[in-house]
């Protein structure tokens, strides 16, 4: 830095003045270290070489949206001071079993590089990656400063791996295990935290099924004074919950266990007291097997509640209504469709500040449709919750008019994910396609970033999207469209498109190849069960060497047919760990 500064002073000709930043690098780095958003940092790094360097030296957290877009070596070369890594692996449709088991996204190759380049790594956040017990053990013993592990929708490991983490990570502050394909071999991992261990701040094992030793848990909670997030699993009863809360009234996020134990009135009182002592709870979840009769115990804790996740709690509409009265600050609500339209009306009435709503189906395959939400519920929410900008709505019937009304009421949608669970279902009152519904969405919601479409849709929907959705970044399409033209409209019309995932649509090679120029500006493209052929994919791969074009073959399908295609930009070249069923062209 000194030499730079000298050079600046010694040769202040105008060219150098404009070239050099007016700050010494150290100052620049200091300033840039205040930037957290990786998008901002990306922009900063493009300004000039100095800024690029300052940025790379000051970056401590790296976010990699597609683990195959870059190699760990390249990352380590560019960013020498990383403490925290977020990695996403498999295409999103792997959540729905569309990606072969052994497709890839194994974290181990990354860990091997990190142990050398980032020995002081503190945080690892993985989504849709494969991580084995061996990798977890390796992680736990190789990084002495390791603090924070978050696994979402990952697989390949068992509770033994968690035991290794609990045993060896002396400085652990966060263990967040969510919705993974974990091999649950029992709850003994929790007992692996040493008695001397007190640093835990976040513990989330809500999605593990096995019983844990409650005494161990209770002691752990009571000695970790900084614990602010605690999400337990179903094995924890109400009575046990009360004891945990008594030890940790400072909690800001709580995931309860089972909410259905038979309580004596004394226990009921105690629980209520425990909740009322928790003044800082802003996020509540769990409530497994909820019996509505016990809900009033938590009313005292709801005054500051901003996020209520009832997506595993089968509440009826009336029960939800009573609860919502106590949650005036609610911003985010996740529910099951057991609440029905009646429950959604209550949402509209009681949650004026609501920004996000997700409605999940309790019975997606609909063997016994005892409960569902309809377009009426959707409208009811939009009437009362004008600030709504994120919706995920599973239903079986919808109308164009209803969606038009909803977006008229709530024009600020950034995320609009409507899933009419019956593929190709038209507007059930008019029998028309749902084109106009999504047309209304894109025309009205100019800030739309993410869209999932469903129902019977023709190319017109995609014409609308291409024409109006100028801020769209993520688009999910299933069972829709009429011809290649639809996909072309989107590829040509949406400048900010980053992720496009398509299944079961009549889009073929022509559509695929129309996006040649586009794919390098996108993170990825997924197309399955469309009309692509191997030749079309080869043509794409040939034209665009910086894209990886992967074709996954199904057994027994036509030789030339490309059943599943995944295209993504990469600076790491074709990957070498693909299984035989995945062809990289």
């Amino acid at each position, binding site marked *: 830095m000194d030499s730079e500064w000298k050079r600046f002073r010694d040769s202040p000709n105008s060219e150098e003045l404009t070239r050099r930043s007016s700050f010494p690098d150290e100052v620049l780095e200091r300033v840039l270290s205040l930037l957290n958003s990786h998008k901002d940092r990306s922009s900063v790094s493009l300004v000039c070489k100095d800024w690029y360097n300052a940025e790379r030296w000051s970056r401590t957290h790296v976010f990699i949206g597609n683990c195959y877009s870059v190699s760990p070596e390249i990352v380590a070369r560019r960013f020498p001071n990383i403490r925290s890594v977020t990695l996403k692996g498999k295409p999103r449709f792997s959540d*729905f079993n569309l990606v072969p088991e052994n497709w890839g996204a194994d974290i181990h190759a990354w860990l091997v590089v990190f142990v050398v380049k980032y020995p002081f790594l503190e945080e690892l956040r993985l989504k849709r990656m494969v991580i084995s017990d061996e990798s977890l053990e390796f992680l736990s013993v190789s990084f002495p400063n390791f603090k924070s592990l978050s696994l979402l929708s990952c697989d390949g490991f068992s509770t033994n791996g968690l035991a290794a983490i609990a045993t060896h990570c002396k400085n652990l502050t966060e263990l967040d295990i969510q919705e993974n394909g974990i091999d649950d071999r029992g709850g003994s991992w929790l007992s692996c935290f040493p008695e001397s261990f007190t640093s835990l701040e976040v513990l989330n094992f809500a999605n593990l099924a096995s019983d844990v030793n409650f005494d161990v848990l209770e002691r752990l909670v009571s000695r970790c004074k900084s614990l602010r997030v605690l999400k337990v699993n179903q094995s924890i009863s109400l009575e046990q919950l009360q004891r945990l809360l008594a030890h940790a009234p400072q909690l800001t996020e709580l995931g309860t266990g089972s909410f259905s134990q038979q309580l004596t009135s004394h226990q009921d009182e105690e629980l209520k007291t425990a909740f009322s002592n928790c003044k800082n709870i802003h996020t509540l979840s769990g409530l497994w*097997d909820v019996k509505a009769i016990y809900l009033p115990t938590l009313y005292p804790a709801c005054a500051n509640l901003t996020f209520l996740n009832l997506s*595993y709690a089968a509440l009826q509409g009336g029960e939800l209504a009573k609860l919502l009265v106590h949650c005036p600050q609610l911003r985010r609500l996740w529910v099951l469709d057991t609440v029905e339209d009646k429950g959604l009306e209550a949402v509209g009435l009681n949650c004026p500040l609501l920004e996000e709503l997700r409605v999940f189906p309790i019975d*997606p395959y609909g063997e016994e*449709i005892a409960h569902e939400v309809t377009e009426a519920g959707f409208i009811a929410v939009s009437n009362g919750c004008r600030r709504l900008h994120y919706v995920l709505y599973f239903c*079986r019937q919808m109308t164009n008019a209803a969606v038009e009304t909803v977006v008229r009421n709530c024009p600020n949608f950034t995320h609009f994910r409507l899933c009419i669970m019956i593929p190709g279902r038209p507007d059930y009152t008019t029998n028309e*396609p749902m084109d106009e519904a999504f047309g209304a969405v894109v025309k009205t919601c100019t800030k739309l970033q993410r869209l999932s479409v469903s129902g019977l849709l023709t190319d017109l929907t995609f014409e609308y999207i291409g024409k109006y959705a100028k801020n769209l970044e993520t688009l999910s399409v299933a*069972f829709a469209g009429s011809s290649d033209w639809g996909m072309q409209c989107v590829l040509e019309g949406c400048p900010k498109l980053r992720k496009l995932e398509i299944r079961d649509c*009549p889009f073929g090679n022509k559509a695929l190849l129309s996006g040649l120029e586009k794919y390098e500006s996108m993170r990825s493209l997924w197309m399955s069960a469309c009309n692509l052929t191997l030749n079309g994919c080869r043509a794409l791969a040939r034209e665009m060497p910086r894209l990886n074009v992967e074709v996954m073959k*199904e057994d027994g399908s036509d030789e030339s047919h490309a059943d599943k295609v995944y295209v993504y930009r990469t600076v790491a070249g074709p990957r070498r760990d693909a299984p035989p069923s995945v062809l990289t062209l």
Partner: protein
Amino acid sequence: MSIPLEHDYIGLAETSSMERSPEKISSSSSSSPPRAIEGNNSSRSNNTVLNLKETELRLGLPGSQSPERKPGPVGVSLFGKDLENKSNGCSPNPLKNFVFGAKRGFSDVIDGPPGNWVFSVNGKSDVDLGKGAVLFSCRGEKNNTQQACLPVPTKIVGVPPPPKPVQENKDQVSTVNEHGSPPAAKAQVVGWPPIRSYRKNTVASNLVKNGEDGEGKSAAGCLYVKVSMEGAPYLRKVDLKNYNNYTELSSALEKMFSCFTIGHCSSNGLPGRDGLSERCLKDLLHSSEFVLTYEDKDGDWMLVGDVPWEMFTDTCRRLRIKKGSEAIGLAPTAMEKSKTQN
């Protein structure tokens, strides 16, 4: 390949060697949307018959055979034989609510690689709306024979307007049919609806758990029991506390299940619900077509109507609308039982 069963909800059975009573064969093809047709090894080649088949409601999946379906009398309408002829006048609208299609419509993932349903539709790209029509695909006017069945999953579902020619899907259908007999109840499209496995499995197991606790998940004051109907793609639930007598129950069930029967229209060609309720219950109970039965506390299937209403609501665990032929064996048993009980 096991032969799936045909169930004719609009009482338009065709003559076939499958022990069906030959019934009125009205050509309702014009009025009703095509339906997925399950094949059987006879009579397919009969064109006349096929016309009817086009209008028959089917549950089937390619090659599927749902466990409780027995080959047997078909051509029964829930609300009276004499309504069958009127089916022509019925609008296809009841199908609107016929969501089953969706589920039934997809070839079974369990059975074959997901690819086997890939072809369906998308592949062949219909550009018009009707492509959707596959669900209730009348597979085929003529040769559909073999295949039949199946709602090749495509995008459909809703009520398709006039039947669209689905010949182009024939080849697809055959592929689908070759996949044996997936359990009808569970056939689904891979990865649809898009819900994470973890959530699907957790919520599903909670559903089962709650179901085992007894019918009423709700507090006392409700008495929800499941109601199933032979051949219907999904069950319903009714709260027995909402009704005071058998008539009310019957009328409610009639409304609930009317969407499964095109032949539900009254003799005026109008859906005459209220007027029909008394008669329908009687039809239900006394005709040989459909019979309303219930499972009592002991797990026995009894004929509805024998015991006083209060006793019935106390002992009823679930309801089932059974086909006449099966229920015939039931009635005497029910009588005996109530005799011994009383």
